[in-house]
């Protein structure tokens, strides 16, 4: 093993797929096409010249974009050698539907893989091709890209359409407000730990081949240099090896069906004629327009941006609300991003040593959560199905009510420590933050692992009063498909295609 180089390398944006850097918000049309390889030769030819969009900043921004990612089965079908495959992470290789993994992800009951429309048994895709386009351009773009060569190469397993709900998710809440800021310049110093919450996250958390929040390199396939691998970049931490993972990352895709009517009708019943938006906001932890239920702080937070909107919506931590009276401990945003740091209470000097040794604050809810910087994900999902306003959602469903939901997409370099941890230890965990009998009010499957009473509560603490507990929450979100993908660098894509 070579010594890690001291100066970070420059990022070659032309080697990185654009989705890592951009959300393609102005390209409001998108379709994710799940494919199985029919003819390996034809598939390689198509992939070898596929116009995959890179992360290079261009002006004016492109009006169309295409991204390609592979499952483990797909790489195998493409003829990638076992010796290369085995360098990928075990969760990627095993896939999302492994029995014990489903237990951890909460994919049980009607969210169990056996109920999925795709991603299970023989419906595991080999690859996903993601098309993005500005309004009106998607159909032409897809038609051009999927000519004869495409038809020779692939069978379409499923095409996941998306819809533009104008920045809201199907329940009607502003979405995508909080995203980690990637430290592209690799200036972040993680050696001394982290005393305050920051939104800047080490590049290696989102892109393989670079230092992560542990100041280490996440495992990925490193192979010998030879004629075939000549086009790949060397590994930073082992320059004699070629790095198949470098500038690539893992992509998690899950189809989440949302029961929009069920959600608002439940809220309506619970509000007893009162203001429905107010109760709904406690489920999310934000108002429908995206304002947090806790006050923003005066001190800035690195990586949230400097626009007034960004400050109003993201310049806060839950330090402002230690009793949970502002935002429920179990609210969606508090589970998905607890906005904490390595130690509770920001201890320094001797106090920090004491805290390390376990003699820090001893309140019931102190120090219950892992430090969030190791568990961030970059969300790149899109909605599907027609818009349904909360007031319309209160009326009964017509017979042919279409499905609505989220094509959840997230990027992370370590699926088990990032996406799976977040899903298992925070979102689905019935014991999150000292709670019991509740999981995420939006995403929760309402099941307890021990078969005890259902996890169907949401507790709102009240200042100097008895808490208010909403019980009998139905399941609002059902998983209907999913898979783990590898989003390769452009170089690795060409390597796979030859």
């Amino acid at each position: 093993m070579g010594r890690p180089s001291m100066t970070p390398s420059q990022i070659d944006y032309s080697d990185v797929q654009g989705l890592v850097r951009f959300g393609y918000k102005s390209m409001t049309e998108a379709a994710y096409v799940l494919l199985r390889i029919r003819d390996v030769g034809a598939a390689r030819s198509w992939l070898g010249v596929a116009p995959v969009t890179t992360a290079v900043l261009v002006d004016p921004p492109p009006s169309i974009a295409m991204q390609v990612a592979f499952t483990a089965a797909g790489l195998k079908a493409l003829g990638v050698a076992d010796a290369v495959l085995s360098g990928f992470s075990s969760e990627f290789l095993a896939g999302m539907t492994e029995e014990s993994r489903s237990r951890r992800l909460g994919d049980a009951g009607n969210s169990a893989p056996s109920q999925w429309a795709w991603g299970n048994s023989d419906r595991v895709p080999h690859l996903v091709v993601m098309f993005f386009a500005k309004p009106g351009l998607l159909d032409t773009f897809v038609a051009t890209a999927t000519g004869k060569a495409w038809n020779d190469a692939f069978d379409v397993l499923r095409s996941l359409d998306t819809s533009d709900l104008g920045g809201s998710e199907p329940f009607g809440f502003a979405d995508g407000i909080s995203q980690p800021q990637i430290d592209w310049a690799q200036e972040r110093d993680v050696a001394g730990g982290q005393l305050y919450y920051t939104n800047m996250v080490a590049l290696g958390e989102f892109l393989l081949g670079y230092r992560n929040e542990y100041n280490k390199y996440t495992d990925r396939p490193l192979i010998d240099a030879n004629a075939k691998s000549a086009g790949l970049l060397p590994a930073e931490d082992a320059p004699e090896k070629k790095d198949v993972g470098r500038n690539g990352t893992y992509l998690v895709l899950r189809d989440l069906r949302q029961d929009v009517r069920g959600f608002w009708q439940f809220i309506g019943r619970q509000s007893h004629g009162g203001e429905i938006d107010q109760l709904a906001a406690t489920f999310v932890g934000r108002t429908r327009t995206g304002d947090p239920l806790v006050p923003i702080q005066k001190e800035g937070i690195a990586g949230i941006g400097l626009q007034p909107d960004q400050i109003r919506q993201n310049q806060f931590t839950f330090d402002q609300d230690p009793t949970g009276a502002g935002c429920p401990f179990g609210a969606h945003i508090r589970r998905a991003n607890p906005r904490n740091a390595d130690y509770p209470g920001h201890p320094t000097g001797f106090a920090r040593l004491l805290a390390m040794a376990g003699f820090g604050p001893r309140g019931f809810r102190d120090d219950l959560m892992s430090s969030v910087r190791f568990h961030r994900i970059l969300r790149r999902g899109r909605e599907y199905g027609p818009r349904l306003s909360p007031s319309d959602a209160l009326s009964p469903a017509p017979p042919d009510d279409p499905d609505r939901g989220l094509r959840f997409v997230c990027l992370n370099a370590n699926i088990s420590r990032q996406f799976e941890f977040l899903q298992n230890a925070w979102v689905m965990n019935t014991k999150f933050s000292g709670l019991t009998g509740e999981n995420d009010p939006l995403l929760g499957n309402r099941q307890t692992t021990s078969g005890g009473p259902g996890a169907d509560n949401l507790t709102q603490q009240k200042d100097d009063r008895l808490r208010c507990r909403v019980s009998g929450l139905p399941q609002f979100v059902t998983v209907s498909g999913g898979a783990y993908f590898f989003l390769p660098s452009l170089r690795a894509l060409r390597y796979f295609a030859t």
Partner: protein
Amino acid sequence: MTPQTSFMILAPIDPERETALRQLLASMNHAVGRVNPNNSLIPFGQFDRLHFARLLIVDDKTTDDIRVYHLPPVIYPLYLAFLGDVDGDRDTLLEELARVAPNGLRSIFLCCQGFTSDTDLVAWMKQHSTPSAASYVNWRGRTVRCIREEARLREALENYIQGAAATFTGLRSQEIHAHLRRFLQAETSSGRLKLTPEDPTPLGWWISNFLHLIGVPLLFLLALPILVPIGLIVVIRLRTLEKTDPELYPRVDAAYSSALALLEDHDVTNQFTAMGSLKPGIVRLLVTLFALLLIDWAARHLFIRGRLARVRTIHFARWVFLDGRKRVVFFSNYDGSLEAYMDDFINKVGFGLNLIFSNGIGYPRTNFLIKDGCSDERKFKEYLRRHQLPTQVWYDACPGLTAVDLERNTRIRQGLETVSMSDQEAREWVALL
């Protein structure tokens, strides 16, 4: 206060009976990874002083690792281990086991070397008891009975509050506390709820614990004139060793890892067993002994109320030396998934983890014994998973309850047993409900 103890019965398996033993152990579960608490061999559910129990075949797949030191691997016998965490005296629990489940125990132990149909069960179990080098109890003195009574108390409060929600409208924390105290009094006097007072602390235990508390540091101080030079030599030697000791963390076999995962996450609490060989040489042995002594002392006197350093998810844990201190095995009962457990360890008590586990062959390289090591997260996780052993039978007397749940329930009870509270105390207490 009833102190907790533990037992571990360890005996080599008769190779010809290994298959039969595996079948017997499997018959105690009603599904993979899920014990039947009323199984006919050892009906764990009948022992109301037993917190956790496990039976496993100590099948160390890493004994060949010593080859990295150019030493021949030792062929160790395959052991059966039967462990339990107990309220009060361990010997009386062994006697109770022999009384309640003589046939089941006999059929299991008959698969071990030297056990025959006329062996005295209790004497044999005591004879094969193996002590821990260090052990940790989440909350000293909290008995199974106490856990169950407090869980029922919380449930009763929850039901009462749900049924009488209007009663609490407008009540402030101190008034809520007073109101629920009256509810508790009514429930206990009618016999619907029971909160048994603590038993007196056994005098013998109190004395030995006190002697341990002051004795270990005192002996340490007395031995300082010898320990300082030895310590210096050890540290100097250790600095060389940690730069040269080979690391060994190949990717864990996917089938082995999947088989382990099948046993996990059936409940909020999980079992964990890992073992490995110590690095050869006296220096590593001395460091291990010192680290375990330190951990044991701290766990016995400092970390007795819900936290092992910063970790709040461990119910019971222990380290045991095997085979003349050539190998160490670690057992724990923890909350959450293994991934979260390992993250907790790495991020919160990485220094302690390195201090002890870095003396195992192949551990990711440390720096001054407590730095680096497990912070090479992927290496560490591969290392730990590779050293993990499947546990064939695992029993938890209080399923569905995390250690944090237990702490909440205890705090609720303590609050209800407090006659009057300050405004701030009452607010914090009401927030637990």
